């Protein structure tokens, strides 16, 4: 499948500090991709680069086959709901739909009106008087009714209460089911994304730590627990992501494409959250820890 987003050695520097470095990625089309990482890891930077809000300092990025923000046709292909879902406080809900209709050639007015009706948003209400959840839904409506190939959302649910969060994601998934658009959404909480993502990118310290399809990632990561042992005795094809020891027991989180044969281990399944947390708390790899971005993020 052709990637909907392709980054090669992408980097962005703000005033002497790298917000993103050496980012090489392919996000396949037709997926819901979760972009996970702690605050300041570079998630927003990556999304803003992809939306053309920022220009890269180094490397290249291609979205839906074009350079981000390069023209009206490119902008029409990509929807972006920025962090905190900005809306015009003085304009009404109906005004926002009008705005979308006037500024987007592919605008689906029936879809927008239907959504607003279903969400029970009063069209005459100014956006400044909506709740956070309603504003997010309005911004999402603008993003979906634009009918983009790729919809990106930067921390869309961070400011929402659990119920609004669930409704927002439900609506997003409904749009994915109906229109088959590709979605990239970021969050610093994996729990928000666990159910809805089938592709995952973990970004820590301005670098991509792991990326891939959720099923594949879950299939190659295992939790091993057994009698205490030295890590150097492990087979070469098992990469330790995290390890903890007590005086009798060793618990490992390993990545391997091959089955675990050693009968001394009891092998456990990982939840996506365990997997992500292991990567988030992983100490810097030797040889990689001298990059300037590391200190900044930590």
């Amino acid at each position, binding site marked *: 499948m052709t990637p909907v987003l392709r980054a090669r050695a992408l980097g962005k520097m703000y005033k002497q500090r790298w917000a993103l470095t050496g980012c090489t990625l392919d996000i396949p089309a037709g997926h819901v991709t979760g972009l996970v990482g702690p605050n300041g890891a570079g998630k927003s930077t990556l999304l803003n680069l992809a939306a053309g809000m920022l220009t890269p300092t180094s490397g290249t990025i291609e979205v839906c086959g074009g350079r981000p923000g390069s023209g009206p046709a490119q902008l029409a292909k990509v929807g972006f709901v920025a962090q905190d879902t900005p809306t015009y406080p003085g304009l009404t809900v109906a005004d926002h739909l009008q705005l979308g209709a006037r500024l987007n050639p592919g605008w689906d007015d029936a879809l927008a009106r239907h959504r607003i009706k279903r969400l029970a948003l009063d069209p005459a209400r100014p956006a400044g008087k909506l709740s956070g959840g309603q504003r997010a839904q309005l911004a999402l409506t603008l993003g979906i009714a634009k009918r983009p190939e790729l919809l990106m959302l930067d921390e869309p649910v961070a400011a929402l209460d659990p119920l609004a969060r669930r409704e927002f994601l439900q609506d997003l998934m*409904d749009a994915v089911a109906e229109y088959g658009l590709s979605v990239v959404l970021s969050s610093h909480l994996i729990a928000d994304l*666990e159910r809805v993502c089938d592709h995952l990118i973990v970004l820590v310290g301005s670098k991509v730590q792991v990326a891939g399809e959720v099923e594949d990632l879950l299939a190659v990561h295992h939790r091993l627990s057994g009698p205490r042992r030295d890590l150097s005795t492990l087979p070469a094809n098992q990469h330790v992501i995290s390890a903890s020891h007590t005086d009798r027991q060793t618990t490992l989180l390993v990545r391997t494409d091959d089955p675990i044969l050693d009968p001394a281990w009891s092998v456990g399944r990982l939840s996506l959250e365990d997997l992500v947390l292991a990567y988030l708390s992983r100490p810097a790899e030797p040889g990689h820890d001298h990059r300037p971005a590391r200190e900044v993020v930590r």
Partner: protein
Amino acid sequence: MIEFHLDDRSGVSPYLQLVQQVRRALRLGLLREGDRLPTVRDVVAQVTINPNTVLKAYRELEHAGLVTARPGAGTFVTATLADATLTAAYGPLRQDLRRWLAKARLAGLADEDIEALFMTTFQSATQEDIA
């Protein structure tokens, strides 16, 4: 019609949970041949899940020969797992298990001990089979 639910804490991936729920329903006779599975959008709305995950689960069920997708109409159950011979075996096995449980309790094992013993034995037996 089957109603799906997801357990975030189980460690089982959402798509596998869906597959398992259909299989269990088939096994217990809750789903019978000719029944229609909920549409992808229904499942998405029900459990807030990625539609691709639902599609994947349905594809897997189709691959296993349990369901068939009819374009425009939906996905229908075409086989059952409630095998008569298997169900016949349930009774005696359950009785054996009951007897074993009573023995374990008599030996002074608490519920948690019984569960741990069963799970470790089950796991090591499964692993020996794989190896």
